[in-house]
């Protein structure tokens, strides 16, 4: 619809999942999108785990997003709001590596985490935030009273790579999302030097209604088609139906 004979020369479509994560090095800081069951780029995470990298820093909502990377012993540092599953009775894959001293864990409020990512993406080095004052979150942080409210200084959290999940991605890197799969994905994409998007459908530039684009291509460097969600993807023993596309 927008193509008037001047097809963009940019092509961010990558042909395979493994190729999309092939250059991520040991020690990289990686953000992984997703919240609960939704919006997690499982295929990218599994491909990254297969590379058996070392000393990654992982930023994600919960172990649900990076359990495969713990199994491959690729992680040395985790920054997360949920250092276990939301259900405290579920087995915690982070516990043993944490207790053995193999993985350092920083737990912080989700709102603070996403704002740290947004700040990194928006060129803001640090900001004052009132959340966490009077709790363990304020430990070792500069404090200041602003507008009658006690705040702590929070620094931007830049990422080397972001792995995100979207519904449709075009050849210029523009992304749309489906329902609660949006979650942290747009802000992870903003915060990273290189963003890799796993999508249900890849299309040519010009085929998306521009009004529906949530993450513009400037924040996205690679787009790769995922497959159906893993067949063993279950929630508390109930196998969820496969994703609609």
């Amino acid at each position, binding site marked *: 619809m927008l193509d008037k004979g001047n097809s963009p020369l940019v092509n961010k479509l990558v042909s395979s999942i493994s190729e999309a994560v092939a250059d991520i090095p040991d020690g990289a800081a990686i953000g992984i999108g997703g919240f*609960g069951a*939704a919006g997690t780029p499982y295929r990218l995470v599994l491909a990254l785990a297969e590379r058996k990298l070392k000393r990654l820093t992982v930023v994600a909502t919960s172990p649900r997003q990076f359990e495969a990377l713990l199994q491959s012993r690729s992680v040395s540092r985790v920054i997360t709001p949920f250092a276990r599953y939301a259900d*405290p009775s579920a087995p915690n894959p982070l516990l043993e590596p944490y*207790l053995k001293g193999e993985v350092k864990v920083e737990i912080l409020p989700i709102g603070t985490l996403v704002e740290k990512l947004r700040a990194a993406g928006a060129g803001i080095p640090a900001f004052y935030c009132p959340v966490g004052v009077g709790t363990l979150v304020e430990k070792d942080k500069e404090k200041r009273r602003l507008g009658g409210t006690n705040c702590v200084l929070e620094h931007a959290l830049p990422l080397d790579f972001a792995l995100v999940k979207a519904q449709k991605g075009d050849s210029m890197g523009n992304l749309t999302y489906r329902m*609660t799969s949006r979650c942290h994905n747009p802000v992870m994409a903003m915060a990273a030097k290189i963003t890799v998007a796993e999508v249900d459908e890849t299309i040519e530039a010009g085929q998306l209604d521009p009004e529906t684009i949530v993450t513009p291509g400037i924040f996205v460097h690679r787009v790769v088609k995922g497959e159906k969600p893993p067949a063993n993807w279950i929630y508390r023993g109930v196998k*969820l139906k496969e994703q609609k596309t």
Partner: protein
Amino acid sequence: MSRQPAGLSKDLICLRAAKELTPGMYVNLGIGLPTQVANFVPRGVILHSQNGVLGFGPIAAEEEMDWELVNAGAQPITLSPGISFFNSVDAFAMMRGRHLDVAILGAYQVSEKGDLANWRMEGEPLGAIGGSMDLAYGAKRIIVICEHINKAGRPRIVKKCSLPLTGKRVVNTIITNLGVMEITRKGIELRALAPGVTTAEVQKHTGPKLMLSDDLKEMEF
């Protein structure tokens, strides 16, 4: 150690909590027991979840489940007219920016001053802050719902929290299987009793001394 005294079932605690909500309110339901309140909210209450959804319906039945439509506790939820989706930055702006009228949260401990501890259990090395600190800071009113005593038989309502805090002086109302309590400047006031429960029973399972409301009555649903 004492056994959980009688009183309300978990469903009835949720039903009683839902009575606090009125049409037009924007409400966040925390992870755990509070998410079940979604099944009882009156029509016109607009539910918010921090993973980026506003105006959703009840928890999904198995045949309705869609793995891309979940709440913050990863439970499948349902579509409802007027539902909207947005990213996490906006979801937390709604929370931190004082746009939510009520947050209903679970608790391991609540102090008589309204301090809340709900992210690290006793003896737990790690824990899950999630969005609880953002809600504790930003929601206009915090209602805690929980069983009156914990699994070890100890009161959840205490003089001073021994567990790491989620927020200081943030809780307004506590609804348990035994009663409804309000945190006031003078202390905790018992406002309503669960059917068949006496004030002495509630006091027996509560750390600080309770004040009795002039208007103390049996809970209404």
